[in-house]
């Protein structure tokens, strides 16, 4: 990343408190032009709050937020950003084309309406009223509304929720096209697979803190990505795993289960320590499982 380009969006020690709840606890994050960033984390981790701060929908309790170097509520900044929110609606009586044209009018140099509609995969529904769209089609409509202003940065909060397989595929293709066009994209998801597939940078958020900020490859090497299990004649003692890379160890019965990202090393060590095993299985861990292993680590500031 070029250190001399100024970030498109920047959180500077941003914190956000709702009453007694600390949703964000001092997050610093700078996103450079052209980055495709996934904000990954379980529900309630602070992803939506982060996006809301970046958009100026919420004001930080502490710290600062900048969008194109401006306060995010500034119309000059807003005019260069497109948004897809998790919880928002539109009145159902306009047609797809009408509302996309309307939203386009809010921006200085919008995309041609039909192009925005087509990019969202809604060309055949352009004249349908919003109220008649299915959940997945509606999600695509919100995507069309996000891109219709031809923004430099796109904020997408849980964009694939409610999308069917076809809609998701179209969405992935659109994001890749936007990335190729040099747009900056920030999206939230709680699916590691989705983050890995689309993003070039994954920011893992948990309990209001950034607990990892890395490329998908780096992140995958950090998480315990293989699930190992085998049968033993007598239950093992936990100390036999001393010094070995493992997580989520389960020794409760004759079947031993654990997660690791170095299955070969761990198994070799176990053999050397005299463990006799039968029915050995090594499988790619469920990605969700691996991700949970990461977010369940003790909190660190």
């Amino acid at each position: 990343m070029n250190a001399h380009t100024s970030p498109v969006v920047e959180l500077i020690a941003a914190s956000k408190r709702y009453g007694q709840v600390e949703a964000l606890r001092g997050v610093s994050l700078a996103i450079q032009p052209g980055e495709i960033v996934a904000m990954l984390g379980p529900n309630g981790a602070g992803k939506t709050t982060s996006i809301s701060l970046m958009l100026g929908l919420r004001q930080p309790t502490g710290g600062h937020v900048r969008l194109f170097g401006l306060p995010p509520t500034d119309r000059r900044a807003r005019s260069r950003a497109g948004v897809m929110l998790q919880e928002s609606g539109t009145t159902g009586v306009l047609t797809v084309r009408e509302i996309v044209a309307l939203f386009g009018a809010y921006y200085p140099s919008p995309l041609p309406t039909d192009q925005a509609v087509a990019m969202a995969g809604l060309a055949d529904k352009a004249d349908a009223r919003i109220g008649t769209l299915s959940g997945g089609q509606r999600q695509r409509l919100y995507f069309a509304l996000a891109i219709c202003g031809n923004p430099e940065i796109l904020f997408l909060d849980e964009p694939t929720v409610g999308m069917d397989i076809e809609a998701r595929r179209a969405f992935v293709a659109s994001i890749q096209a936007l990335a190729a066009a040099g747009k900056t994209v920030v999206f939230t998801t709680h699916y590691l697979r989705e983050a890995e597939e689309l993003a070039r940078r994954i920011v893992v958020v948990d309990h209001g803190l950034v607990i990892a900020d890395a490329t998908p490859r780096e992140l995958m090497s950090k998480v315990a990505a293989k699930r190992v299990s085998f049968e033993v004649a007598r239950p093992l003692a936990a100390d036999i795993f001393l010094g070995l890379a493992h997580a989520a160890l389960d020794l409760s019965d004759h079947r031993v289960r654990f997660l690791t990202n170095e299955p070969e090393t761990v198994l070799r060590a176990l053999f050397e320590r005299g463990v006799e095993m039968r029915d050995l299985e090594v499988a790619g861990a469920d990605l969700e499982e691996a991700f949970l292993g990461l977010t369940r680590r003790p909190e660190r500031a």
Partner: protein
Amino acid sequence: MAPLFRMLVAQTLGELRVRWRTPAFSLTNLALPVLFFTFFGLPVAGNTMRNGVSVGAYLLASFAAYAVGSVMVYGFGIGVATERGMKVDLLMRATPLPPAIAILAKVLNALAFSLLSVVVLIVYGIIVGGVRQDLTVWIDIVVRLLAGSLPFVALGFAIGYSSGPTVAPALANLIFLPLSFASGLFMPLDRLPGFVQRIAPYLPTYHYAQLAWSAVGVPSEPLFTSLAWLTGYTALFMAVTIRAYRREQTLKFA
């Protein structure tokens, strides 16, 4: 940035489309005044009041006031509450559309609908009811009513920001219908019970109707008095609106 005027035009047209395609709004606001005039006005339209004013003209002026007021109260009351319920405001808030432009578009849209509603009513009164007045009188009614509608815009916003989509229609009805009745919009004040006659001079609808009544020659209070009352009520409803609006902004966007 996109030019504000272009935004305003697009937003107003968009609102018009939405309103026009919502029959609960468009049909109700176009048909109800005509319907009321049919029931209350047509049977007596040919009569003349003691002061020489045509009863038809008097009632047409009354229902014109009802028509504009109801577009404002129901349009903003139910419209704003519904949009808040659907979280339309959340998405709009994230766009570069300034909230002032969005509100101005709503007001322009309501004025257009009021105009349409009053014109439909007056044309109906002329053709079906045989009510005769100079064209300048009709124009005077329309201009006075549109210009004086601000308290009802404010009342609509007050309802829209302080109640949800299920409560707003009931609230709008419970507030605006009794106000209209008690102010002599549906039947002349002197036919209403004594206690209602005593309350009427304190109601916003009463002073609003004066604007229309004086246009057709009914002896009315001075224009200044009407405007003073209407201004006072605008301030009151605005205060309620601003309170509810601020509370919601804090809740949603703080």
